[in-house]
């Protein structure tokens, strides 16, 4: 018995030094002044290019909620002299992978293409970004799909829980509503609304660019200038910040299903807070989406109350909260909430142990290089790190920052972050013992 253990511990100690991420990032500035981060990797003849435009669905007015989402979905539905069929056929001829996505805070564009076809793919995507058609038949078709999704969401307990939580937390701010809008607002969106949404969102003043793969800096500079030829300098102003305002307590939304979905949380930590990384580390110990967290240990491993429970720092462009999610049989919902409160109070009061800290430091520093294991993953990280405001050398010092955290710092953050008296719960289901 002990032999294997001793061996395991021995290996653990000799390997405990954190691995370097070893990502060589080249900053690129194009002739027209666009900035990009590039990781050159020439062994596979493909290029990954990611764009993030800050703003997203938050730029919609209340009356046009959903406009940015619908506009983004229509970017691949016809541009220039190509209708939707022709645009898709051209994408297929180029064997390119092109996706446009809208979120609460961003519109993002993700491109994967063969090095050979770079110019053709860039011209194709530029047409979509600068000259989308928004044909009436395409609007009607995609709007119908979006309305169908909204009706489906209205019957999905997970979506219902997240919506109710956002509404309680942020009220009338754009953060309080759904990025995809409502059946009423989406049904009213017309071509003029989509053109306006396009003008608001797609601009040079808010874009972050990451690239990886079979391309060098001069070539990338040339390609992004080609891509942005015709894209306006300025978009719409970003809205004001949102304050977390949900009152503590439990709201139950009746729903017929075998389980209760529970959304929980309170105010959070801003992503530009000097101690954000400390909060990130505390959350990894507490509920960071892995097996070994306190929440998983208490609710799943010891008691079998759930398949999964996790917590996350929901720190957005305009506001921050600290949230978690779980599902459990209706009969267990009240017990689960009691346990969540217990764990919340315990970590605020007692913090984590020296052993917890060193374990999580080893885990986080060791796992960091795993994020950079392919061109696609790297390009998306490069764009996202710029959007989140990191310096270009962050990737190479991040592990040192984590290792430098002391137990006092981490536990001060635990006391600051976790506030059991502020906890707000939304329960969607037929929970027993809750009203």
């Amino acid at each position: 018995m002990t032999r294997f253990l001793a061996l395991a511990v021995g290996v653990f100690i000799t390997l405990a030094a954190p691995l370097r991420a070893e990502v060589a990032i080249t900053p690129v500035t194009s002739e027209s002044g666009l900035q990009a981060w590039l990781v050159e990797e020439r062994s596979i003849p493909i290029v990954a290019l990611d764009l993030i435009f800050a703003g997203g669905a938050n730029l919609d007015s209340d009356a046009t909620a959903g406009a940015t989402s619908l506009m983004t979905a229509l970017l691949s539905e016809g541009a220039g002299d190509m209708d939707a069929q022709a645009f898709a056929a051209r994408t297929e001829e180029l064997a390119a992978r092109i996706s446009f996505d809208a979120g609460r805070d961003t519109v993002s564009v993700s491109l994967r293409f063969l090095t050979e076809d770079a110019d053709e793919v860039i011209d194709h995507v530029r047409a979509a970004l600068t000259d989308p058609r928004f044909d009436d038949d395409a609007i009607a078709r995609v709007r119908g799909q979006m309305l169908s999704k909204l009706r489906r969401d209205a019957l999905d307990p997970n979506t219902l829980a997240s919506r109710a939580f956002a509404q309680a937390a942020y009220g009338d701010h754009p953060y309080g509503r759904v990025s995809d809008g409502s059946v009423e607002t989406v049904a009213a969106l017309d071509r003029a609304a989509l053109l306006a949404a396009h003008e608001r969102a797609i601009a040079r003043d808010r874009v972050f660019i990451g690239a990886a793969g079979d391309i060098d800096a001069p070539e990338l500079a040339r390609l992004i200038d080609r891509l942005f030829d015709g894209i306006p300098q300025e978009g719409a102003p970003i809205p004001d910040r949102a304050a977390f305002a949900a009152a503590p307590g439990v709201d139950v939304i009746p729903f017929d299903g075998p389980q209760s979905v529970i959304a929980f949380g309170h105010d959070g930590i801003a992503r530009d807070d000097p101690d954000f990384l400390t909060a990130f580390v505390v959350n990894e110990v507490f509920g960071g989406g892995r097996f070994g967290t306190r929440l998983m240990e208490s609710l799943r491993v010891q008691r079998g109350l759930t398949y999964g429970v996790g917590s996350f720092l929901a720190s957005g462009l305009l506001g921050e909260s600290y949230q978690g999610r779980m599902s459990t049989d209706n009969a267990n919902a009240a017990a689960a909430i009691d346990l969540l409160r217990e764990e919340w109070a315990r970590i605020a009061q007692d913090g984590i142990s020296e052993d917890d800290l060193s374990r999580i430091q080893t885990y986080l520093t060791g796992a960091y290089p795993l994020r950079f294991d392919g061109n696609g993953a790297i390009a998306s990280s490069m764009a996202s790190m710029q959007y989140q405001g990191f310096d270009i050398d962050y990737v190479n010092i991040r592990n040192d920052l984590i290792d430098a955290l002391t137990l006092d710092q981490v536990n001060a953050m635990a006391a600051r972050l976790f506030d059991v008296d502020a906890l707000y719960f939304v329960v969607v289901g037929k929970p027993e013992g809750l009203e």
Partner: protein
Amino acid sequence: MISRLTVLVVIGLLALRAAQADPVTHTSLDNGLEVVVIEDRRAPVVVHMVWYRVGAADEPPRQSGIAHFLEHLMFKGTESMDPGEFSRVVEANGGRDNAFTSWDYTGYFQRVASDRLDLMMQMEADRMANLSFTEDDWRPERAVILEERGQVLESRVGGQFNESMMAALYKSHPYGIPIIGWRHEMETLTGQNAMDFYAQHYGPNNAILVIAGDVDTAQALEMAQQIYGPVPPNPAIAPVSRVMEPPHLAERRLVFEDARVGTPYVNRMYLAPVRRAGDQAQAAALQMLAALLGGSSTTSVLERRLNFEQGIALSAWAGYNGMSRDYGTFTLGIAPVDGVSLEDAEAALDAVVAEFLENGVDQAQFDRVRRQIRASEIYALDDVQGRARQYGVGLSIGLGVDDIDGWVDALDAVTPDDVIAAGQFLLDRRNSVTGYLTQPTTPSASEGAQ
């Protein structure tokens, strides 16, 4: 015409160049463990996977879900490791680990810095033969899998609908039983059931080791020999033997009514051939058929006709799964726009398929699909875990490395006539089940949903 040909040739060369840069090695140890090593030195990361050729389709009667329950219990310790220690050690080394169960296989994997591969091997070799847990470990875990069924299946009406479709498609083969198990049987599973299943099916002579990433092949094989080599073969391992399907003489139809249905749709599943070792031509033709009918949300035949031209579908789809041991499935479906009944939608879907089989393949679309398939071979090289998975699944269901490496060539060899010939079986509904997913329309269903 000429320019298109030129492009295809260039793509072919690119694929060849890239494929040569990434050798795949396949061998076996004396104890029967098959080993696949895929070198990809771009990042200092390795994926370590062990696949057992056993899954939910090999369960004894009245124990549905035992293969998946055992997968969970594999993290509950061995004679030398405490419950949960496996994952703790992986985490303490900066790795991620997880596991998955299918009808045909059960897999365990870790992603970790490449200099920690030996530790992963030691732990995985240990639990290949020395699993050990107590009642205090398995009882809460049984509650967990019941919660899992509640969350991922019973709370999702589409999941329950699909479960009903599969149960109707298979008259006797265990693919008709859900992988996670029927609730009433899961509630009776015990740790002893899991241990019996383990003793019957786990061992190096029923497993495939896949190592992919930043390794030197010779060193990885040497390490595998040293660490897995001493694990004795399990004499209880027997060839896969399952209840097979009788001839299907009547199509099956079902209506699934539930108040939680937001978008009603029609789905149809046909029993279809699978990819066979040394014989993938028919499967390749079916894959091309699925790509032409449903491979694009814009240009595929079903979307173009039913969504763009007739305007009666929100979406329409086709798919083929030939990556299983005994039977594959071919799926067709349509979600109609408001105001179109499921009956009319189904009739329109059938008419478009019949028209396609009658009129033949559009050559321009066919060429575009072929281009994308060639390119996908290059894109796949950017995803080392995906590559590892391809070999793991393939070898688990009885394919050889040659079959996996030759799949794109098999697709490339398919002609338009092959596609139409492969699609003829879609006109025979006796091999199929058709399901409607809809809001309750009858009073009894409304009550049942309360």
